[in-house]
């Protein structure tokens, strides 16, 4: 196989096609639209289903229907579109049918802007729809990683009959990088046993629903979902480490913030600062055990995000107060430069770690000045 230059949005679309995607429903929104555009010709060419819905609400409910029928199905959108899909996602979670969502996150809240951001973390990772459920959330940091992950998501979603969300941001959607595409899988010809497909008079009908009027029945479903989630927490942890072997402290960042941090960590290493990078790829389930184990070896964690410190809370929980945690973030579609993160790494190395107060408060106390000086 050869490496070719791919634009992020088109690469994830092709990866899904190759994973045997049967039906795509979506609605255009920047910075995700190229994925929908690519699907609009690619899927009909292959005799598969592409449908541009009347809105994101329509799209997610079409996905719901296709998922119940047993099809490999997905949608792609960006932040405001994801908000509109939340009701549908909750219904899909309650019905225990598999689907894939790609959220190319942009600056917010509100209409915001189309620049890269990570402000949807809490909404996506901690489940923005109502009720007790957990989606699997994977956050790749490059186009090859996004391709490899999207290619696997359908198998994962079907294994657990759950929602898998691939959380990107505008920069990964819009950039081009070389990627090697995985082989084309054949489209499935047999429907899953649980699906609401034709009985052909040979079996009892399957009933798929998210309505359980008797709370006892709902609770049994909740229990089943939580048992599945325990399996997911055991099996689906993904992360990548850089320069961690001899690191004295670690930057923790996911997706694009993680790769910006990588540049800063490399520069710091060149100056002799013993810092490493821990980049969670599965942000749900979160690599809690790995973070906890690192507290034995690290002097502190330095969390970097393109939001107000949402994963920061997960790192604080996972590290159980055993070592100090510091935070740096940019919000609203502003992408930090490596220089900003390097400046903080140097400071931590030179001045040591503070324990008093909350890391978010310490960061907020200096952010205004940083913004004003730019």
């Amino acid at each position, binding site marked *: 196989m050869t490496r070719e230059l791919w634009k992020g949005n088109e690469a994830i679309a092709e990866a899904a096609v190759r994973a045997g995607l049967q039906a795509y429903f979506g609605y255009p929104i920047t910075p995700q639209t190229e994925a929908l555009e690519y699907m609009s010709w690619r899927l009909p060419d292959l005799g598969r289903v592409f449908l541009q819905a009347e809105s994101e609400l329509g799209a997610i409910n079409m996905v719901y229907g296709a998922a119940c029928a047993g099809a490999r199905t997905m949608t792609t959108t960006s932040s405001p579109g994801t908000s509109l899909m939340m009701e549908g996602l909750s219904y899909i979670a309650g019905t225990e049918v598999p689907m894939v969502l790609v959220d190319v996150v942009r600056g917010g809240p509100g209409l915001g802007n189309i620049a890269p951001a990570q402000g949807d973390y809490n909404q996506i990772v901690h489940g923005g729809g109502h009720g007790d459920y957990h989606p699997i959330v994977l956050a790749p940091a490059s186009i090859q990683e996004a391709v490899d992950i999207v290619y696997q998501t359908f198998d994962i979603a079907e294994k657990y009959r759950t929602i898998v969300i691939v959380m990107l941001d505008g920069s990964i959607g819009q950039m081009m990088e070389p990627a090697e595409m995985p082989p084309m899988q054949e489209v499935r010809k047999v429907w899953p046993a649980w699906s609401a497909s034709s009985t052909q008079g040979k079996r009892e009908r399957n009933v798929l629903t998210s309505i359980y009027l008797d709370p006892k029945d709902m609770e049994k479903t909740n229990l089943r979902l939580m048992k599945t989630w325990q399996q997911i927490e055991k099996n689906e942890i993904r992360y990548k480490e850089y320069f961690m072997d001899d690191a004295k402290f670690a930057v923790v960042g996911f997706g694009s913030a993680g790769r910006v941090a990588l540049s800063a960590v490399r520069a710091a290493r060149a100056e002799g600062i013993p810092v490493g990078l821990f980049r969670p790829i599965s942000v749900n389930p979160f690599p809690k055990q790995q973070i906890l184990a690192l507290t034995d070896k690290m002097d502190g964690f330095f969390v970097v995000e393109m939001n107000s410190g949402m994963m920061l809370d997960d790192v604080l929980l996972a590290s159980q107060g055993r070592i100090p945690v510091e935070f740096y973030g940019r919000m609203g579609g502003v992408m930090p*430069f490596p220089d900003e993160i390097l400046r903080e790494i140097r400071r931590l190395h030179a001045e040591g770690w503070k324990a008093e107060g909350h890391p978010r408060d310490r960061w907020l106390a200096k952010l205004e000045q940083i913004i004003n000086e730019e």
Partner: protein
Amino acid sequence: MQNETVIAGFGGQGVLFVGKVLAHAALEVGMEVTWFPSYGPEMRGGTANCTVIFSNEEIGSPQVLNPTSAIVMNQPSLDKYEDMVVKDGYLIVNTSMTNREVKRKDIHAVCLPATEIAEEIGDKRLTNIVMLAALIKASDFFGQAEMETALKKSLEGKKNDLVAANMIALQKGFEFRA
């Protein structure tokens, strides 16, 4: 080794395309590469820029504060990026669209009337390729043969008929002597 090139100009000057050619050249020699466009609403008729990073290892940040080289196709881009380029970096200036000299002495500056050279070839839209060739010649990032392959790759399909004119532009850029 990592190199970052910012290409900046007006929307319509082929900033994104020429970045793609550079990205293809890096891919051609087996390097990692990231092509990152400015994609905001400011692209429509305003200024456009893109960053192309190539490296032998996994690429971190897709944007840099201080690039190792910059191709500036108009006056606002010269004003913005001259100070940003790292010491000993490369600054390629389109003198057809700028009205002042380069001030810095600690960088390699190549100033050429790229739009006029492109018009002599017959199409001012070739300005971008003339300037890219000037950068490659000054920096020796890639060989001319690799650039020719990259150009063909970038024009595959519907734009195939533009290869000949672009090849001439590449040649003229390589041949330019200040």
